[in-house]
C-alpha cells in the first residue's frame, strides 16, 4: 500500500480549504469580506474542545452514528485513486464498496435523526432518504458503462479522460462531469437541493438531521460532510485529467479543479435559491436520463471500435 503524501494531505486538509474558498466566494458575491479561509478549522477545534449535550430520548445509536459516518467517508476517500500509482485500497469492484460505504454513512445519519425523537428531524430524514435514492441508478449506469469502455472494474482504471479524443468521448466526459457535479451538490447538501445556511423548518434537510448533535459529534458530522465534497470533487477532477500524467502535474491539476469547483459552488449558492422541496426530485431525475445517454454513447463508441 503506497502512501502518496499529496493524496492523504488532500483528503484530510482540503475540506477546510474547500469550505474556506466557498465561503470567500459567497462573501465576494455578497460584497462582504467573509470569514478567514481556514475558519472551518478553527470552528472544528472549538467544537472538539467542548462537551456534549445529550437528550434523554436518545440511545447508544446517537453516540455511535457520528463515528460511523466519519469512518465511512474517510474509508471512501481511501478508495479513490490520486496522484500515486494506485489508490491505498484497490481491487476489482472497489467502486461498489465505495458506494456501499457511503450508503452506510447515510444509513447512520438517518438513524441519528430518528433517535432524537421529534417530528422535525423525521421530516429532514425523510427528504434526505428519498433524495439520496434518486441518483443512485444514474451513478451505477455511468460506472457500469465505464467498465465496458475501459474493460476493467476498479476505480484506478475507470477514471481518466476517455481516450479517443472524438467529439463523442468528450461528450461522454462532459455528461459524466455534470452528473457527478449534481451528485456533489446533493451529497454536500448544497443549493439547489438543500441550503446549509438556513435553519428554518421548511427548508432544512441535512442541517435538521444533526440539529441535536453538539461538541465532538457535530464536529465529526461537519467534517465528514466537507470531506465528502472533497471526495466527489476529486472524482470529477480525475475524469478531467488524462490517465498517465506525471504525479506533480496531476496534483496541480486536481488542486486547480477543486478550487474551481469550490468557486462554482459558491457562485451557484449566491445566485439562486433552493428549489421547492417538491421540485427537487424533478431536478434529480434527469441525472438518470443523462446517465442513459452516457450508456448509449459509450455503447456506440465501443461498437464502433473507437476505444
Amino acid at each position, binding site marked *: 500500500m503506497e502512501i502518496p503524501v499529496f493524496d492523504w494531505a488532500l483528503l484530510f486538509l482540503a475540506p477546510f480549504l474547500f469550505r474556506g474558498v466557498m465561503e470567500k466566494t459567497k462573501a465576494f458575491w455578497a460584497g462582504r469580506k467573509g470569514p478567514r479561509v481556514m475558519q472551518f478549522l478553527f470552528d472544528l477545534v472549538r467544537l472538539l474542545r467542548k462537551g456534549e449535550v445529550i437528550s434523554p430520548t436518545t440511545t447508544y445509536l446517537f453516540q455511535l452514528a457520528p*463515528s460511523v459516518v466519519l469512518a465511512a467517508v474517510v474509508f471512501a476517500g481511501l478508495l479513490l485513486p490520486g496522484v500515486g500509482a494506485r489508490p491505498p485500497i484497490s481491487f476489482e469492484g472497489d467502486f461498489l464498496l465505495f458506494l456501499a460505504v457511503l*450508503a452506510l454513512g447515510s444509513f447512520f445519519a438517518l438513524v441519528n435523526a430518528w433517535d432524537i425523537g421529534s417530528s*422535525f428531524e423525521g421530516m429532514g430524514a425523510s427528504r434526505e432518504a428519498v433524495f439520496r435514492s434518486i441518483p443512485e441508478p444514474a451513478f451505477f449506469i455511468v460506472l457500469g458503462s465505464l467498465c465496458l469502455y475501459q474493460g476493467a472494474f476498479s476505480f484506478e482504471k475507470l477514471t481518466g479522460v476517455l481516450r479517443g479524443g472524438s467529439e463523442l468521448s468528450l461528450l461522454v466526459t462532459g455528461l459524466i462531469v455534470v452528473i457527478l457535479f449534481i451528485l456533489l451538490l446533493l451529497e454536500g447538501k448544497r443549493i439547489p437541493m438543500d441550503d446549509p445556511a438556513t435553519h428554518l423548518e421548511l427548508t432544512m434537510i441535512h442541517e435538521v438531521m444533526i440539529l441535536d448533535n453538539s461538541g*465532538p459529534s457535530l464536529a465529526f458530522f461537519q467534517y465528514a460532510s466537507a470531506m465528502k465534497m472533497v471526495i466527489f470533487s476529486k472524482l470529477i477532477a480525475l475524469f478531467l485529467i488524462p490517465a498517465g500524467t506525471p504525479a506533480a502535474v496531476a496534483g496541480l491539476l486536481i488542486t486547480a479543479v477543486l478550487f474551481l469547483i469550490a468557486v462554482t459552488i459558491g457562485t451557484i449558492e449566491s445566485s439562486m435559491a433552493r428549489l421547492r422541496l417538491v421540485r427537487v426530485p424533478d431536478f434529480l431525475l434527469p441525472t438518470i436520463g443523462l446517465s442513459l445517454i452516457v*450508456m448509449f454513447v459509450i455503447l456506440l463508441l465501443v461498437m464502433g471500435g473507437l476505444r
Partner: protein
Amino acid sequence: MAEEMTTGLFFAGLAVLAVGGILSGWFPHRVQTAIFSALCVAGGGLTLSSGVTAMTRPDFVEIHWALEFPLGDVLLRFDPLAGFFITVFSLVFPIIAFHSRSYVGRDPERFHLGLYHFQFALLVVSMLLLVTTRNALVFLVLWELMSLSSFLLTASEPRNREAQSAAVFYLIAMHVAVLFLIAGFAYLIGRTGSLDFSDFGRVLDSDPLVRDVLFALFFVGFGTKAGFFPLHTWLPKAHPAAPAPVSALMSGLMIKTGIYGILRLISLVQDPGPAAAFTLLGVSLFTALYAILYAMGERDLKKQLAYSSLENMGLIGTGIAVGLLGQIYGNTLLLVWGYGGALLHLFHHALFKSTLFLLSGTVYSRMHTRDMEDMGGLAKRIPVTSALFLMGSIALCGLPPLAGFASEFALFFSLLQGIETSAQLFFILICALALLSLVGAFAVIAFTKLLGVVFLGVNRSSAPGQQAADETERPGEVLGPALMSGLILFAGAFPQFVMAALAPAVAVLTTAEISSPLSAMLGTLSRLSAAILVFEGVLIAVMLLRWSLKRKKKTDRFKTWDCAYEAPRPRMQYTASSYTLQAEGLGKHLLAARSVVQKPEGLFPGPSSVKRKSFDFVEIFIRVVLSGLVERFFRLVTHIQSNTHQTYVVYAILFIVFNFTWILVGR
C-alpha cells in the same frame, strides 16, 4: 469412511429430531420445551456435520434402497448442492428451536405446544430429506408434507383468527402450485418411464420446446414456494400471522426450498435455454422492486420483514438468472459469479431474516402489537435486542461490513461480468444493475424507518399494556440471534471462506470447467475481505478517537432541543408512513394505495384524519376477479344438479346412448 459419516450422521440427526417431535408432547410443558430444543440442537449438530462433509466434497454419496412399493426405489444423493442446503438448514433451525423456548414455550395457553413441536420436527425433517431425494414421487410426498406441516405451524395459535385464515390461504396457494409440479413430473415420468431425476435430463435436453414448457411449469410450482411475483400473495399474509419462530423458519428456510427446486432442475439440463434465463431475470427484478416498495410502505413490522424476504428472493433469482446467462453464453466467470452470488445470498439471507423474525417476536412480546405506529423507544427497554436488530437490518440492506454486502457485491459484480458479451446483454445487465441499486436505496429507507419508529425516540403508545415494565431481556431471548449475528459479522469479513466452502455446490449446477474462474472469484473476494477489515479498523480508530475526546469533557443531559421543539406528546414524533410518503410517491403506479382523508372543515378546524392503506393488487385480482370467475363457473355447474329423479334418468339414458355410439363408431 467419509461416506458412512455423511449418511450415518444425517440419519442419526433425523432420528433425534423425530424423537424430539414425537416424544416431547408427552411431557409437561416446562420440560417439553427444554427437551425439544435440546434434541433439536443435537440433531442439528449431527445433520450439520453431514451437510458440511457433503458440501465440501466434489463427489457425492448415494443411498439406494430398491423398493417397488409404495413410492418406487428410495434414492438419496448427498451431493454438494444438497450438502449446502443441509448446512444452511442445520445452522439455523436449532437456533430457532432454542429461541422458541422463550417465545412459544412461555405461553402454553396461547399455543398448542405438542402440535407445534411435532409439526416443527416434521417440517425440518421433510426439508432435509427433500434436498437429498432423487425420486420424483418421494419428492412430491415430502413437498406435500412440508406444506402441511408449515400450514399447521402457522395455525398453531388456536385463538388467532388472522393466523387461521392466513394459514388456509397459504395451503390453497401451495396446492395450486403443487398441481404444476405434478404436471411437470407426470410428463417426465411418462416420457422416461422412471422416477429417477437422473433420467429426466435426457428428456429436458431433447427438445427446446419441451424444455421451456417444463421449465415454465416447474417455475410456477417452485416459484410460488419461493415467492416470485405474481405468485407471492400468500407470503405477506402467512408470515406475519404465524408465531415469530415459525415465521423465522418459513422465511429463513422453507422458502429456500423453492430455490432448491429451481437449482436442481438447472443441474439436470445441459443447456437451459435463453427463455428460462431472461424470464427468470425479468421476474426476479420485478419481484425485488415490487416487494421493496411494499416493504417501504408497510406499518406492520412482520409484514415488512415478509416483503423484504420477497425482495431477497428476487435478488437470489437474479443471481441464478445471471448464472444461467453464463451457461448460455459460455462465460464461466459470469456463471461462477452468478450462481456463487445467489448461493451466498441465500445463505446470508437465511441468517439475517431468521434473526430479525426471532427478534420481532421479542418486540411483539413486549408491545402485543405488530403495528409500528404504536411503538417507539424500545432501544431503551430491550437494548440488546435493538442492537442485534440494528445489525440484522444493516446486513439486510447489503451494507458493509456485514454479510449482506458480500453477497450483494457478488450479485452486482456478476451483472458486470456479462457486459462485454453483446450489446443487448450490456443494455439489459446495466438496467438490471440500476434497478438493483434503486432496490438497495429503498431498502435503506425501509429499514431506517423500521429501526427509527420501533426502537428509537419515545414510545408512541399510551395504552397501559404497552408501557415499560419490569422486563429485562432474558438470555434465552437474545442468545440465538446473537450467535447468528456473530456468524453474520464473520461471513461479512471473510466471504472468501464461505464461498470456498460452497464452491463444489456451484460445480453441481453445470458441466463446465470452473476451477479458474472460481479462483479468480475467490481472489477478488479475498481482496474485498482485506478492504472490509481495513474499514473495520478505520471504524474502530474513529470510535476510539471519539471516546478519548469525550472522556475528559463534561456531558450534559437536557431534553431534545431541535430548534425549540416542545415535545408536546410522543405522538408528535414522525410517523412511519410520513417518512416514506415521498418515496412511495416515486413508485405510486405499482402501489395500489388508498387514502381516506377527512380534512378540517369550517371556520374553526374540526376533527381531521388520514387513513392510508396499501393493497397488493395481485391479491385483489385473485380475490375478486379469479374467485369471481370460479364462483360463476360453479354456479353454472350447479344447474346440472336438480332435485328431481326424472333429470337423472335422462342423464343415465344419455350416458348409455353415448357409450354405445362411441363403441360402435370406434370399431
